[in-house]
């Protein structure tokens, strides 16, 4: 794996907790690694499994889903729906050769600006250890056998 490997993370943050936490991290000038890019959804319950798969297919090395703490969902229980889907999806990804650590579900409340830093920095470190999801050359090579 190249030493200069910079993991790409797509982060789906819920509007009311985790996205606000990221805002708080910003206003608090907390510094964290620039590898995660946020897609805002109203609730972690909106995160369709298809989104996660799309992100992995399009080159994400990791996907992060951020929602409200259990019991705190702005929409009462959307985060539980997210949790249920995440648990099954993890097993499917495992079968597809994608390690558990590449998909992370985190409860981060609007007050936990620093948690955003901790989670993203941790995840980047983990992904650097794991290396790129797609070893570009051979993967493309075979997928383009028909191209």
């Amino acid at each position, binding site marked *: 794996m190249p030493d200069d490997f910079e993991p790409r993370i797509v982060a789906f943050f819920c509007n009311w907790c985790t996205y606000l936490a990221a805002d708080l991290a910003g206003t608090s000038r907390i510094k964290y690694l620039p590898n995660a890019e946020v897609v805002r959804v109203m609730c972690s319950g909106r995160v369709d*499994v298809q989104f996660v798969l799309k992100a992995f297919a399009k080159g994400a090395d990791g996907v992060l889903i951020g929602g409200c703490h259990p019991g705190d969902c702005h929409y009462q229980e959307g985060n539980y729906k997210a949790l*249920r*889907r995440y648990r*099954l999806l993890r*097993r499917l990804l495992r079968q597809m050769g*994608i390690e558990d650590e590449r998909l992370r579900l985190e409860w981060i409340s609007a007050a936990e600006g620093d948690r955003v830093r901790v989670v993203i920095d941790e995840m980047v470190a983990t992904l650097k250890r794991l290396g790129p999801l797609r070893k570009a050359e051979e993967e493309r090579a075979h997928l383009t056998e028909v191209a």
Partner: protein
Amino acid sequence: MKPKVAFYWCASCGGCEEAVLDLAEGVLNVVAAVDIVFWPVALDFKEKDISAMDDGSIAISFINGAVRTSHQLEMARLLRRKSKLVVAFGACAQLGGIPGLANLTTAAGILAEVYGDAGTPELQFRDDGHALTLPKLFDSVFALDRAIPVDYYVPGCPPSPKIVSDMFQALLDEPLPEPGAVLAPDHAMCDECPRRDTRPQELKLDRFYRVQERMLDMDRCILAQGLPCLGPATRAGCGSRCIAGNMPCTGCFGPTSHMRDYGGKALCSIASVIEGNETAQIDRVFEGIVDPVGTFYRYSLPSSFLERKRLE
């Protein structure tokens, strides 16, 4: 003069040709209406034989089966060039089909498994001077439209007789359907399921069963009985034959036009109707789904976003 049509198979089982024969008396009408220039086997595949035909001289090529070898790829390209319309006929051509599960492994993996240490066939072999060749086995199975542009899709493993006859209707008469259309209803199969009204509004499953783990009522929603039935996520048009057989839908008719990754969407919805707010409890509920990929991508792995298992 009657339109020239061709039938060709790639990696497939022949069920699709049988599906056409199952038009029974109807076959005779089809034969009367068209001039079939190829049936699944064609002329010797060499370039010069094919180029003998004018490009686009075939009105419609019905291609079933996924693309798995260099040889099938070549043939698919050839037919594309020679045909005005190409129809991906059946689940394998449309989605990759069950042979697409081979995308959980590689060509090397398959050869090793099948031949073990008995030695593997070689692509080019000389037997006392006789040169024999075998086509290359790709690492991945591909849905037809990854290999060539496809004009229409006919879903099903196999397509149901109604779908097949409707298809001939639709393609042999003007006006043609929307380009890229899947020639089947664009809503999910639940709608035509004889048991649809027995699905409760508040479904919260506390476990999933495997078929050998419970007797199934003949008249109750199968998902409500705890078996992952994919009817809610699967395109209609099959005549709910599996349900009639008292077995869950496994999704051979593939996605509706509003889904992008069949397995992902199906998983997303199945996982939404369970009990449990704690990880441990949730995992217990899912224990009954022992093979997520085989369950949700049984017919569609090559056409999924990820297309195949990651190469180690």
